[in-house]
């Protein structure tokens, strides 16, 4: 099955019409960070990479489906997108909402192919989490109460998906909207599994989370991040969601 899917992705990428859009990207300096999950105390190294300054918008995505009709709402294969794919679009070329609001209701397959067609890729979860630690001023703001409160307040605010990109703050790297508008797909979105039974995840045997990090989700950083991991854990690659968009990333070429 795995090989079959891989072959399918390759097929999809082959047929994609390359059209580098003029999206601004920002450089994220690499580094080492301690993620919420994983073996206790084990840090992860993130190589420097480029990341889109804004999430992909409705207008961007319209251009994409026009150039790549297989991703039109009426053409899309159910293997690659479930019924909620572009569910708020009234037809193949008409979206509801602002043209510069982030596109949502897009499956992982579609998001991945979109990025490939721009000569880019989806960010890895570590890259995304690493870039998203930054507030306006510092690369790692996870211990700053106001920063975490901002994220949590967003989680508790309904219907943020229809605000224009760039309407939240510009972070340390010059990237906007990592928090505040929509959740975002990552390449390996559920490699860290929050299983359906979240209390079992704290079991060390399960080896999904380090017990202490999960069970002692006492600080703001943990519980904001937890909600992201939980969200990702609930998704499958063909799912799409009203509150889920994406942006692309790219390796730095030597």
């Amino acid at each position: 099955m795995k090989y079959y899917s891989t072959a399918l992705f390759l097929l999809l990428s082959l047929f994609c019409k390359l059209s580098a859009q003029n999206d601004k990207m920002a450089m994220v300096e690499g580094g080492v960070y301690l993620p919420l999950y994983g073996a206790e105390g084990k840090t992860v190294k993130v190589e420097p990479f480029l990341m889109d300054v804004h999430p992909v918008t409705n207008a961007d995505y319209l251009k994409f489906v026009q150039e790549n009709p297989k991703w039109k709402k009426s053409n899309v294969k159910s293997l690659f997108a479930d019924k909620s794919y572009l569910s708020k679009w009234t037809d193949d070329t008409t979206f509801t909402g602002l043209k510069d609001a982030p596109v949502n209701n897009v499956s992982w397959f579609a998001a991945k192919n979109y990025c490939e067609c721009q000569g880019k890729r989806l960010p890895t979860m570590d890259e995304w989490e690493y870039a998203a630690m930054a507030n306006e001023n510092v690369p790692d703001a996870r211990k700053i109460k106001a920063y975490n409160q901002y994220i949590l307040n967003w989680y508790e605010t309904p219907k943020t998906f229809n605000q224009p990109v760039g309407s939240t703050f510009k972070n340390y790297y010059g990237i906007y909207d990592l928090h505040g508008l929509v959740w975002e797909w990552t390449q390996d979105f559920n490699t860290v599994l929050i299983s359906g039974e979240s209390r079992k995840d704290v079991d060390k045997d399960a080896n999904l989370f380090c017990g202490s990090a999960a069970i002692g989700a006492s600080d703001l950083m943990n519980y904001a991040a937890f909600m992201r991991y939980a969200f990702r854990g609930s998704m499958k690659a063909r799912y799409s969601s009203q509150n889920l968009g994406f942006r692309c990333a790219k390796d730095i070429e030597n």
Partner: protein
Amino acid sequence: MKSNIKKFFFTKMLVGIAAIAMLSSCVNDQSSKKYKDAVDIPVNQEMIAELTSPPFVPTPVGKRMAKKLIVDLEIQEREGEMTSGVKYIYWTFGGTVPGSFIRTRVGDEIEFHLKNHPDNKLPHNIDLHAVNGPGGGAESSFVAPGHEKVFSFKVLNPGLYVYHCATAPVGMHIANGMYGLILVEPEGGLEPVDKEYYIMQGDFYTEGKYGERGLQAFDMQKAIDENADYVVFNGHVGAMTGDNAITANVGETVRLFVGNGGPNLVSSFHVIGEIFDKVYVEGGDLVNDNVQTTLIPAGGAAIVEFKVEVPGTFILVDHSIFRAFNKGALGMLKVGGEENEKVFAGEIHDGIYLPEGSVIQSMPSLDRNKEKEEVKALSFEEKMKFGKDKYMATCVACHQGNGQGIPNAFPPLANSDYLNADVDRAIDIVLHGLSGEITVNGKKYNSVMTAQALSDQDVANVLTYVYNSWGNNKTDVTPEMVEAVRNK
């Protein structure tokens, strides 16, 4: 007692005969065979479960046979009002806190459809304590926004069970209101009663203190510290008071399905002025008779039954009493009907007694200098609006929604000669409390009002509201007037 039992069996027989007569022409829908193991109870036919919002419960199962019961529950993240002027984003099962009540019987096979509304931000799941299986169903029901999960289980144990969301961070999902009750009736159903209601306590943690206006965010630190700002029945302050009170008539038997969603606090559930004839301890088979207060653990439940003998308003509280009068854990059962002086004669004597508690109670004073800087001149309309909010948050439990008070206990504020006679005295009472006998509109009252820890502006607002409502003399109370009394 003996004659009661006889009477009960007689009634039951009549009901039984009537039911058989009614059903004799239809499909045989009644089970007769007894099964040793509930697993072996066969199901026949499908049925859509009736789901109800609190305080209501679905129709009793009676003697129906076990069925495949389809439960259709939608998760909604939505804004609601914790108390007047205080908004909160609730996460709900079925749009209410607590979630929809599910009623089933032993041997039913439940096909559970859990739907996560597409507008929701978060994944959710459900752990039903009535399930024998991993995670109580949580593992099988983890559902992304815009998706539906279906899982099934057979209910084996009779009792009243809590259900709740168990998605990370679990405590937060519960704290935001994701809990409810599922009742599993025994073979043959529970004994019939006249009135049944659904009540569930929960504790809430907000950034602002109790009553602080605006949209309040969830406060994780307070939740970890178990320092609740609100402890309420059925999701918000006043869900069961005034017009929302539950009702019964003299002579009726009342059954309350009482749950406690927590996340943290256990409940000392009590009905002021009633004794529970029967408590199904922790919602299980053990029945305790003649109980004053029953302890309901977080994530637990109890069924209480009692007969109401006299009319009046009976106050439901968490008898950890500051929660009732200061954090919202207060509901009302209004009983109508004829007085019964054999049971309760009311006041028969009024003499003089100097109580040991005659010292006026006080509460910690505010940091008045800090408060003073924040005082802004408010328009009359604003004072009325904020005053009403403060009244609904602070005063309504005793003085009631329309200022009518509670006879023989708390004096009326509506059309009150005592209030209208002296504004400074009224300010003084709010600031410093009052105990001892007073006469209001010709009736004597002897109770205690505690001093209220309110700012000058709040006192001015609430009194302006009271003076400009319910036929009072329309005094406009200013913060300066309050300050003058405070400094006296």
